[in-house]
């Protein structure tokens, strides 16, 4: 990352090779559109490039950080496309995204990531749908309740339960 902060193009190329595939996959999942997803990949790397200096290593894994940015950018774009007002006060401008979104210390191993992938598929439909709307569409609990025409309390419980299941899968 320090090489990136120093403007090292080679470091940028290495970072691209390592993470672009994952970033693109996440962006495609959120946006369901190849062109938009590629735009997001571009934005992520530009943002990382500009903010490399302010990324301290104690904040966590670079790869995980990239995916956090990828999700944020993708959801911003999704909101714009859906002409959906941002009910969460403000979209994450770059500086806030840098500081406030938690980043895990380490990347999950392939095996751990696979476990989550399977656990997600195995969730009861109602729980999975609610969680996916929250994560891959960036909806708030109220928005999800509206979308599913379910009571807010029900939605909260479903998401909490789903998250608990996934946490347990990671622990075992």
């Amino acid at each position, binding site marked *: 990352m320090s*090489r990136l902060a*120093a*403007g*090292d*193009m*080679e*470091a*940028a*190329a290495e970072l*691209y090779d390592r993470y*672009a*595939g*994952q970033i*693109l*996959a*996440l962006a*495609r*999942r959120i946006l369901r559109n190849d062109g938009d997803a*590629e735009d997001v*990949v*571009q934005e992520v*790397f*530009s943002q990382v*490039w*500009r903010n490399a200096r302010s990324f301290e290593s104690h904040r966590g894994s670079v790869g*995980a950080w990239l*995916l*956090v940015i990828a*999700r*944020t950018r993708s959801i911003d774009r999704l909101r714009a496309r859906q002409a959906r007002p941002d009910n*969460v*006060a403000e979209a*994450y401008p770059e500086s806030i995204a840098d500081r*406030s979104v*938690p*980043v*895990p210390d380490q*990347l*999950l191993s392939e095996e*751990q*990531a696979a*476990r*989550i*992938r399977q656990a*997600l598929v195995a969730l009861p439909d109602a729980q999975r749908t609610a*969680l996916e709307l*929250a*994560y*891959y569409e*960036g*909806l*708030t*609990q109220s928005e999800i309740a509206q979308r599913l025409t379910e009571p807010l309390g029900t939605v909260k419980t479903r*998401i*909490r339960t789903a*998250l608990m299941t*996934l*946490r347990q899968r*990671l*622990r075992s």
Partner: protein
Amino acid sequence: MSTNRHDAVSALLGEYALGQLSTQERRDVEEHVRDCSECASELRELTAVMHGLARAPESVVPPLHLKQRVLGTLAHEPGAHAPRIAHRSVFASRTWLAVAASLIVVLGSALFLTVQRQRQTTDEFRRAQNELSELRARLDDFSGQTDLALSILTAGDMKRIELAGSDAWRASSARAYWSPSRGLLLVADQLPVPPPGRIYQVWVIGGTTPVSAGLLGSQRPGRGMLVAPPPSALAPGTVTVAVTDEPPGGLPAPSGSIRLAGSL
């Protein structure tokens, strides 16, 4: 720290991790988590779950043009340069525009840039998409070379060499990007058709001994490109890059006239 507060925040940790909280709510959570190891631990787990959700969509192989686009854009950003700059930094100046432009032109990605800039009518867009798929198919032939080309362009020891010619080659423009550690990228435009039954061969001359870098490939009449690793057994001395025309298949040593040449 009241249990009420703890319970209240604890219930919000999931929403916090999902990014569903307002700025104020986020601050409240962060303030509490700082002092509560139980919540901190739960938040760590939730953060890992979030990362797992990010990884759930299986990784894909990005299309080739995307790497060029991303790195090309970064190179325009302030501060971009290749590592361990020897003499002058190509990237610190606007010459990067020329570098990117010639590579893009030769690889036919200019169309891609146009598509990105104007998404006008659906018809235009669809036509552009078709051309793009066609180009991508041709680009796939060069796929191994695109990575090498990019690595040459980003090499710290890369130097740019302008080639010039005379007579029929006076109007040709050719540029070589030479990295002793990575290889040679040569792009040529407005090349006359070689004399009948001849092909273009590229040479790297160290001192006085020419070593073949390979045959110039052409995707379209008038355009030529070569991407090659550094030729072995290059004698020390000033580097000259030259293009001659040779019999089909090329020769181990140049026999034809030098059509284009340039030196460091």
